[in-house]
């Protein structure tokens, strides 16, 4: 072993650019590379899960069977949900964390760079495992068309909804459930390691002078998110472990015949599941805070309140999980507690919305694409927040639960919330990363098409939901047809508009690769306050802050 020599030479090489070829991406310990990998995985899975959503929407274009079997429909809703949550939103946010947190706190890289590589590279294998049953099924179908009979009797992909309730996923789960269980174990390891890395980076890698209350909101959002991940991903791992044991080793966690209870599954799942929604949105809140203040050319209004609100939301997020279980026969006292605790979350969230609006108020506004997505977020996320308060009211929830109203609600917070925040972030930082300004006209088209078609898709779902259309069913009563057709048209437009986004991103990456230098200013948007804008060139070099910067009071907020 001449590892010491290796390390000595390698140390000198670190001053140069990245390694060449595929090895760069497989073995990298550079936070920017890993951030890019996360974002690319997210982009890929976005289209995979998006196609699944279109299968669902097209099936719902008319009552009765349109083109797929009910069984396949169930698999599509399940995988669409699982992949969008774990394979699109979470990796995208982790990609931003990797790119931005070290630069924003003035660190040379993440605290544990090798572990960082593992956090990412667990994910493609996890998603391979998760989608194998579906791939097998698709190959089987295709082979059937040409007269072969490959993978006959291989069984269905996961088909019980993304919440995989017991006993649908235990007693009645298809064989592929075990793939899903192990995939979730691997995603869990990935998330926990990533969260450890983020917490340690923020605790330990801040440059001198980068005090807690000078941290950009994006960093705060991710710090709180990382704690949520550390607390609830292990619980999800425990939950799927219990499923595995019940399925194969005759344990009785979710079996009333042995003294257990399927409702226990829901408690454990939602103890993870509710904080999970904040895991999906808090980094997005951070992005929106950065974008809104930059394009208003003002300091963020009420910074310390924003920090406090983020922490409060996370804390309350731990003690509201039973609002998903109002109709499970829980005692009224419990229902009341969880109802009020849930409604209480509207207060810190309201503080945030108020502060964003106040930041915009009397600002020197410009409306480039990131700002458009941020404004779209403000309006439509708030709509999703309001329908959330409606769902929190226990007696009303007896009516709404399991209906399309719920689907409308969580798509408003996830699509026009988390996803729009991700779009805002990509348009916001892409010029900084690549040194190339995306095509603003195309960006604006992308925004307007997405915003309009998003509402076309999900707004009618409020109505059919309130009128009683159940979710997760491939068929519906005749009177819901019009609204469902509007939703399907909206979904197809939304899906196609994302091709614009793909084209914009690919163009930027191509120009970056070709080495085109457009001489963009360091502070691309002329209002950025955090270190990546004020202290680093555009495009950012492969290694940043190798010498530790000194941070003063004027540096950030």
């Amino acid at each position: 072993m001449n590892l010491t020599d290796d390390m000595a030479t390698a140390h000198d090489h670190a001053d140069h650019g990245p390694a060449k070829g595929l090895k760069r991406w497989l073995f990298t310990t550079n936070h920017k590379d890993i951030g890019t990998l996360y974002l690319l995985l997210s982009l890929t899975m976005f289209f995979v899960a998006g196609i699944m959503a279109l299968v669902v929407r097209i099936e719902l274009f008319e009552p009765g069977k349109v083109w797929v079997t009910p069984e396949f429909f169930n698999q599509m809703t399940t995988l669409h949900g699982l992949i969008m949550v774990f394979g699109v939103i979470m990796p995208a946010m982790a990609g931003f964390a990797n790119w931005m947190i070290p630069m924003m706190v003035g660190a040379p890289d993440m605290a544990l760079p090798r572990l960082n590589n593992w956090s990412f590279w667990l994910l493609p294998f996890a998603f391979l495992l998760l989608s194998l049953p579906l791939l097998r099924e698709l190959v089987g179908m295709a082979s059937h068309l040409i007269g072969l009979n490959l993978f006959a009797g291989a069984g269905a992909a996961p088909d019980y909804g993304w919440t995989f309730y017991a006993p649908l996923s235990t007693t009645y789960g298809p064989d592929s459930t075990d793939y899903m269980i192990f995939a979730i174990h691997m995603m869990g390891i990935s998330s926990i390691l990533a969260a450890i890395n983020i917490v340690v980076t923020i605790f330990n890698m801040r440059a001198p002078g980068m005090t807690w209350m000078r941290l950009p909101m994006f960093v705060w959002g991710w710090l709180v998110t990382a704690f949520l991940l550390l607390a609830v991903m292990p619980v999800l791992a425990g939950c799927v472990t219990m499923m595995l044991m019940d399925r194969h080793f005759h344990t009785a966690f979710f079996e009333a015949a042995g003294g257990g209870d399927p409702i226990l599954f829901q408690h454990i799942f939602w103890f993870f599941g509710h904080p999970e929604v904040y895991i999906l949105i808090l980094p997005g809140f951070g992005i929106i805070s950065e974008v809104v203040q930059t394009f208003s050319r003002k300091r963020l209004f009420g910074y310390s309140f924003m920090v406090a609100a983020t922490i409060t939301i996370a804390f309350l997020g731990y003690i509201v999980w039973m609002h998903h279980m109002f109709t499970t026969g829980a005692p009224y006292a419990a229902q009341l507690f969880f109802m009020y605790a849930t409604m209480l979350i509207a207060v810190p969230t309201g503080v945030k919305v108020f502060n964003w609006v106040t930041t915009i108020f009397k600002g020197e506004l410009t409306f480039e694409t990131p700002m458009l997505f941020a404004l779209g977020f403000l309006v439509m996320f708030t709509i999703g927040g309001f329908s959330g308060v409606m769902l929190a009211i226990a007696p009303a929830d007896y009516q709404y639960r399991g209906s399309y109203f719920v689907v409308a609600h969580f798509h408003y917070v996830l699509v026009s919330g988390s996803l729009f925040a991700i779009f805002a972030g990509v348009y916001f930082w892409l010029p900084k990363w690549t040194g190339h300004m995306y095509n603003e006209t195309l960006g604006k088209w992308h925004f307007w098409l997405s915003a309009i078609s998003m509402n076309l898709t999900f707004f009618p779902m409020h109505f059919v939901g309130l009128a009683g259309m159940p979710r997760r069913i491939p068929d519906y009563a005749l009177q819901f047809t019009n609204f469902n057709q509007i939703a399907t048209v909206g979904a197809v437009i939304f899906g196609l508009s994302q091709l614009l986004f793909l084209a914009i991103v690919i163009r930027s990456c191509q120009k970056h690769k070709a080495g085109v230098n457009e001489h963009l200013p360091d502070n691309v948007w002329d209002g950025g306050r955090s270190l990546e804008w004020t202290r680093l060139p555009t495009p950012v070099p492969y290694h940043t802050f190798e010498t530790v910067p000194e941070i003063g009071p004027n540096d950030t907020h």
Partner: protein
Amino acid sequence: MAHGTYYLPQPSNWPLKGSIALFLTTFGGANWLHHSTFFGLEFGPYLFVLGLAMVFYMMFGWFGTVIRENRAGLLSDKQVDHSFRWGMAWFIFSEVMFFGAFFAALFYARLISVPVLSGEQAHYYLTHLIFWPDFKDQWPILANPNPAAFIAPKSVMEAWGIPAVNTLILLSSGATITVAHWALLKDKRPLMLVAQSITILLGIIFLSMQAREYTIAYMEKGLTLASGIYGTTFFMLTGFHALHVTIGTIGLCVILYRMFRRDFSPTNHFAFEAIAWYWHFVDVVWLFLFILVYWL
């Protein structure tokens, strides 16, 4: 050189090897559970074992790299040391939450599902009235709601036999590892080696006693994983704990080896402390287990 002192490792292939290893383990494991065959060969167990071997190979190689980096003095920086410490601390926190899920299942069974199924909490619950009117509220359960589907044990585990002795053993091992730490700080090498060895020995004794207890449970008491919620929570909680003691004991052995290699100094011994924290964590989990699973 423009670098600060913070050590940034070079590109590494250990993480990718680890991911492939875990993929093979889980893919093999899932197929093993279903006895899938490929051209007549049941491949699950082979892939599972291969994957597991790769996991060990990866851990060996990865930790080995870190140890060599430390010997080369690359990790001696205070800030790097802090990163490792914070990292370990939050890893243990996530482990606490993992155990929390299983403890939650235990509380839920004892406080909610068993009383409800027995009609104890509210006599009108239909599950009780219609399905299993004979089911009685008791803990540990000696008769399951459906006695045919889940065969209950003949008798329950006693707290004041092996478990009580095991509690003493683990608590003493917590003390001996603290002695080893003190000796390490004071540079008292022989005492450190002896205390560390005793800690390992206590860990091994604990594990053999636990194995003995499992034998009694399975052979004499008829208490198995399939004995209903009592057996489920008993074996899952103590089983995951025993797994952690095993990992901890292996870690302690590696540390002892490194002590012989003179890898540690009073100022540079993060790995020792990491395992010591882990060992205390396992210790505390056992106290909760003893009180809540065996005793009360």
